[in-house]
């Protein structure tokens, strides 16, 4: 059972968390093409590497961003969304 650092609640086993998928920038729905939108909805950056991901700490109801290398499973840092620079 992996450990993960919730930026508010500290280090907890991964069983306390829900994985929320990769954080992805939404294209502007008003200006993007259908193809771009379909790609945004369906396609993923599947290759391994350092990714920004959504994680949710269940007991406290906290969403946050984890920067995790999906090859090594090492988390380099976690922070609340929008507070990247405070981390």
């Amino acid at each position, binding site marked *: *059972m*992996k*450990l993960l650092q919730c930026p508010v609640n500290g280090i907890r086993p991964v069983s306390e968390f829900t994985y929320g998928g990769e954080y992805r920038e939404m294209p502007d729905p008003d200006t993007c093409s*259908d193809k771009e939108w*379909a790609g*945004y*909805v369906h396609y993923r950056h599947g290759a391994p590497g350092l990714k920004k991901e959504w994680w949710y700490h269940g007991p406290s109801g906290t*969403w946050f961003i984890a920067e995790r290398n999906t090859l090594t499973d090492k988390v380099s840092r976690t922070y*609340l969304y929008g507070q990247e620079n405070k981390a």
Partner: protein
Amino acid sequence: MTLRIAEQENEWINRDMPLTFEYEGQQIEAYEGDTISSALWAADIKVLGRSFKYHRARGLLSFANHDVNALMTDGVDTNIRADVIPVTHNMQLTAVNTDGGVIKDKGRYIDKISAFLPVGFYYKTFHKPKWMFPFWEDKIRKAAGLGEVNFNYPRITRAKRYAHCDVLVVGAGASGLSAALEAAEAGSQVILVDENRKIGGSLTYDMATDVNTGSLLKQLTENVLNHANIQVIADAYAGGYYTDHLVPIVEKRGITKVRAGTVIVASGAFEQPPVFRYNDLPGVMLSSAAQRLVNRYSVKPFTKGVLVTANDYGYRAALDLAAAKVEIVAVIDMRQTGAEGDLTEKVKQAGIAVHLGSCIYEVVPSSDKLGVSAVIVCPYNEATAEADLHQQVVLNCDGVAMSAGWAPAAALLYQAGTQMRYDQAVQQFVPNQLPEGVFAAGKVNGIFELEQRLLDGKRAGAEAARYLGKSTADPVAVMAHRGNSPSHPYPIVNHPKGKNFVDFDEDIQVKDFINAAKEGFDNIELMKRFTTVGMGPSQGKHSNMNAIRILARIRDLPVEKIGSTTARPFFHPTPIGHLGGRGFHPHRHTAMHEWHVKEGGVMMEAGVWLRPAYYLPLGINLTSQQAVQQEAMAVRKSAGMIDGSTLGKIEVFGKDAAAFLERFYTGKFASQKVGNSRIAMLLDEAGVIVDDGVAVRLDQDKFYVSTNSSNAATVYREMQRNLQLWGMQVTLVNLTGVMSAMTLAGPSSRSILSELTDLDLLEEAFPQGAYREALVAGVKARVMRVAFVSDLAFEIHVPSSAGLHVWQKIMEAGKTYGLRPFGTDAQRLLRLEMGHHLISHDTDGLTNPFEAHAESLVAMDKAFFIGQRSLKILQKKPVKKKLVTFVLDADFGELPKECNLVIEKGEIAGRVTSISFSEYVNRVIGFAFVLPEQAKAGHRFAIRTDSGRIEMAEVVEHSFLSLNQG
């Protein structure tokens, strides 16, 4: 005859506690503290089992928890490992996998025909003709397998525990003890685990011809056991290494999951057998096994033995055995150069002949083929692995002890991600690069000499403390191994007739590897899979290293180029009951749960909730069908009430509340009036319907939103995420478990409710879709007019602590009206009669609003909502299916079921998603997906039933209630 000898200094048996047990029908005397194998051996019983494939007689091999040929059953348990499981009084044991007893096993004929069963033989035959394979397969399956499973074995739920420490030390041998002490001295909390009943590791059996071993053991043991910072868990093994230093410690009582700050692996090494013909006969065993027998259990391994060795350890073992008055005829050293220092002299002084550069060419079986009568010793050519048959010496003996080298017990290191390298100085794999926070010490680290092992432990302990920031001291220096290698690079003796076993679990001989390579399986992983080496219950503990050496020689490559196979958990086979243990299955109860149960509610799991499906009140004889119809009819004719506390209930509060809901849901909320409700339909980004609930506007900046029961947690979570993402001024509160909800429905519902509240419930004052706050039965309640199950229905939400009170008051007030509780089954029927579909019952993971007749709930003209952009794309495409309401022809023959198919021109056109007989409508009604061209009211379509009949149905307009003629 007994092989038990006089009391040894550190023996583990309690001679004051004799006991008896039965093995294969024979009464055996033993002592408390004996393992099954030691007790049998003491009684001169040496056939402890039959091998997996050839059914050869087998005895002791490792005595270290990988003697998988000595598996027993006591009639309750199976595959009991005789080498390590303590014997208990009155135990009744038989060997597994025999037909007619371990001695007369009928399966032993297979050994005679083994020439017909080359490596991978089962791939090469039995498949032609195809129809014969089931016959052969049945035979093969019955021959395979070890013990029989006991279907009456009781279910065991052992507690599982978590533990936390700074340093976990795996292995309490010299290096582990020393590591634990060092780390503990630096202030770390240490857990020290060892699979033996007593700590000390090889110090407890490898006296190493040194009189000081005993006192060292005593001193280390005392220091460790008395150290406040060290917790010792003996008789337990570390099952595996998992991410972030999680190591399950498997004890008899259950599993402890240890989360450590760092892990020191000091797990030692497994002794490896040299390979020669008939090295598997009962009486041939590893030297360390012989030492364990003598020093722990005071049992002679044999009365007159030879010791074959390919390292210096064999000499020490010979001296140990000799010191215990076990007659050793000769030490046969496969090396030309012999042992270092004065070992050879000491051995000779003990009256033991030394044959240098010699090997056992083969063991001569006793006449019954169940033991050893002699060994044939020949000069050994280390370069060719051949014996020189021209100079044979026959040595009579009844047993052989074998030393050829060691394989590191590095499973945990591999699992942690350690990169290993092959160290020529010790001829074994040693850690090259350890992962962060993982340390290795002792034999597993390639350090063999006792003094250095103690230092290596100290070093690892200090490094661990430094890693944790508990110490800044420099770790001591440890000397790399010098002199003779503890392991021989190729302790294999070729023999034209084979039966020189490499893997005792799977009966794999040297030629099997050669032949596998010839067939192209010359990669270690392929070879493992083709020969099954290391796949047996011992997981290659005594076979993988020799397999690698053989393959290296076949391919003429250095060992490190062959690499090793991965070591997966578990370190030892681990019981399912331990791993499963006490599982936690959380579930939720509504405040009215007790009432439902008392009133005959048949409770069903609905996600994490328990809900009544219907009620079978005591004393009334009803089928479930009748109950459901009666409950539904009560709602239509008078009144019914359902516990809807499982609905998701979320407060959305703040100045951006309406704007937030507009982005989140498909509908419009900015214009919604305070005190009114609207449908809240949620899509995913692909435009698929995820949920539908109701949003009530409590105030300008406050909404109370409900979700489907099964989606409550997900919807709340997604709201939280989008709130962060959108940066809006909104506070969310999840009231799902805080509020009880009940829906009072039916024509009498107004009258009933009016008895408990001052609220004006008349249509004009409280119309459909309206929301009011009032006291109901003295409790502050939130009341809504909803029309999900009935045109007249009130949904009443109260704090859960008052839920039961309000529910009971309403039930009392409704008594004279014929108010009945109804369950989820009746609810399904009622909403069907109303023409309301259920998300994820009538829709599936691909249904969009255009298909589900839900266009009116989608405000495409809004600036944004989740899924909108995808709907814009979907809008341009033809709709492929439509959800419609239908009535089945009245004269149907077989009632279709949900998920029966709609068939059009012989092809699948859709499926029935809901179907039920409605007593109120007096017809069978339902929802179905059909082709768009079939979706108009009045269209008739065909449903194929389970038995293949075609039943006709007709599409109707949405509510079925109008069909009621009565």
